[in-house]
């Protein structure tokens, strides 16, 4: 059964000190329902991507809690939390998509949420997305893994620190026009280059912040979508893959096999090829991750990702604009919410509602990655 997105909503991303975990979700969920033009009692199930409410806000069992706080307790609908590190949102979206595609449900919500600013060291929590026993123990954290990948990419393919900086610069520039973004401020290559190292060669401004935020989308089958919505956006494919958990076990640490596998499958199912993709939201938790995504998604040959950013091909106005929202880098990275936030931004783009960052697009791709790449979710959306 064909599946369409009929409503989207997101909170702003950032350090939202005055917003609680549950109220963040409510605000995203309500705006998605309002956007879909439905009351909420039509919803048959709710899927929530969340990495670590247990560690961030000391709360587990969040799906039912959130459904209750959203006023849905009377309906008794199933509420399911999905966890795949920072690919939790994308994975929740896929579960929701499959529920509608299979005919099991007609109309559902997929949401993502993270409240990180209540925790004392959010990066420590995010780093539990890598192997505690064999990576964390020896002193590596998540930035360290991406840094090791970045250094080898530079060594092998001649990628420069400046190339990585240009990705951060582009994403900050795009975020200026995104009202939901955390950093609506342009930065220069010099700003990135002079920011301190977090894990050599990655600097502070190569790294996405960790943010509070929640996003939600309403999915429905085609028949309902056409009845309720003038501008449905269709989910042409939503695929997921996993890989060896640690870089210690990957044959080639410069290729994210899970991204390659998920995207190739998505291209095959949707009959849409990389050259037909007009816009993409990719997982730039670190600038090197966006550069390698260009290669693994088939937008550039392996080793030639830097060429795309140097030649402006991924800027707004370029051949394949990437992260017009500002990406994780500048829109913010609300961990479990990010995968849904990407979908929200692409839907806004496909409907032509993106204002100053509008791109003329027919087909859009979202890539959401968990940790250092052991999970990847790829979604292809079309008008």
């Amino acid at each position, binding site marked *: 059964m064909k599946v369409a997105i009929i409503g989207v909503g997101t909170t702003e991303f950032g350090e939202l000190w005055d917003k609680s975990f549950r109220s963040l979700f409510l605000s995203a969920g309500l705006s998605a329902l309002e956007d879909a033009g439905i009351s909420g009692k039509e919803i048959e199930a709710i899927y929530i991507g969340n990495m670590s409410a247990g560690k961030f806000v000391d709360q587990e069992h969040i799906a039912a809690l959130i459904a209750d706080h959203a006023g849905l307790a009377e309906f008794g609908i199933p509420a399911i939390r999905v966890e795949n590190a920072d690919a939790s949102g994308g994975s929740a979206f896929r579960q929701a998509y499959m529920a509608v595609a299979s005919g099991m449900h007609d109309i559902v919500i997929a949401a993502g949420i993270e409240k990180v600013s209540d925790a004392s060291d959010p990066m420590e929590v995010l780093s539990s997305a890598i192997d505690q*026993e064999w990576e964390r123990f*020896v*002193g590596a954290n998540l930035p360290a893994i991406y840094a*090791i990948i970045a250094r080898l990419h530079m060594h092998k393919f001649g990628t420069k620190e400046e190339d990585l900086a240009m990705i951060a610069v582009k994403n900050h520039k795009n975020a200026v026009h995104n009202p939901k973004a955390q950093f609506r401020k342009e930065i220069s290559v010099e700003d990135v280059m002079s920011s301190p190292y977090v894990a050599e060669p990655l600097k502070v401004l190569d790294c996405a912040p960790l943010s509070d935020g929640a996003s939600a989308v309403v999915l429905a089958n085609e028949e309902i979508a056409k009845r309720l919505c003038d501008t449905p956006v269709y989910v042409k494919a939503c695929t997921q893959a996993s890989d060896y958990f640690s870089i210690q*076990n990957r044959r080639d640490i410069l290729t994210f096999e899970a991204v390659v596998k998920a995207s190739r499958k998505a291209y095959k199912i949707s009959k849409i090829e990389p050259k037909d993709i007009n816009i993409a939201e990719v997982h730039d938790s670190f600038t090197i991750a966006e550069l390698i995504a260009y290669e693994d998604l088939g937008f550039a040959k392996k080793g030639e990702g830097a060429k795309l950013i140097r030649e402006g091909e991924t800027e707004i106005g370029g051949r394949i604009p990437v992260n017009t929202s500002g990406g994780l880098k500048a829109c913010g990275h609300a961990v479990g919410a990010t995968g849904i936030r990407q979908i929200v931004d692409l839907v806004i783009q496909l409907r032509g509602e993106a204002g100053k960052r509008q791109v003329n697009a027919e087909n859009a791709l979202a890539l959401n990655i968990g940790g250092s790449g052991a999970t990847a979710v790829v979604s292809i959306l079309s008008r």
Partner: protein
Amino acid sequence: MVPRIWRRIRYRYNVIASYCESCGSYYYPQREICPKCRRRGIVKEVEINDEGTVLSYTVVNGRKIALIEFKNGTRMLAEVCGDIEIGSRVKKAFRRYGEDGEAGIIYYGTKFVPII
């Protein structure tokens, strides 16, 4: 954390990989099942004592963390004490890793040092 450290102590003090007798593959860290042979595999432990080569590295929180490759093809993430670059040769060394607070148990394990 203490039981978790204790359980792994043999593997912290030595570099122990897995070897699958059915297909001849090596894995680090050790595995209970061979991803190639799965249930048909016969997985044994094998100690790695040889020198390694630095494939890539970073400096994080003042520590050098490297991805090191051994002759049998296995790769290990470990701290290196000393100056390295990509391609540097390193050998293992017994070193202090950390402790549970000021009065807590001290953890030791394998780190690497450059071969000069």
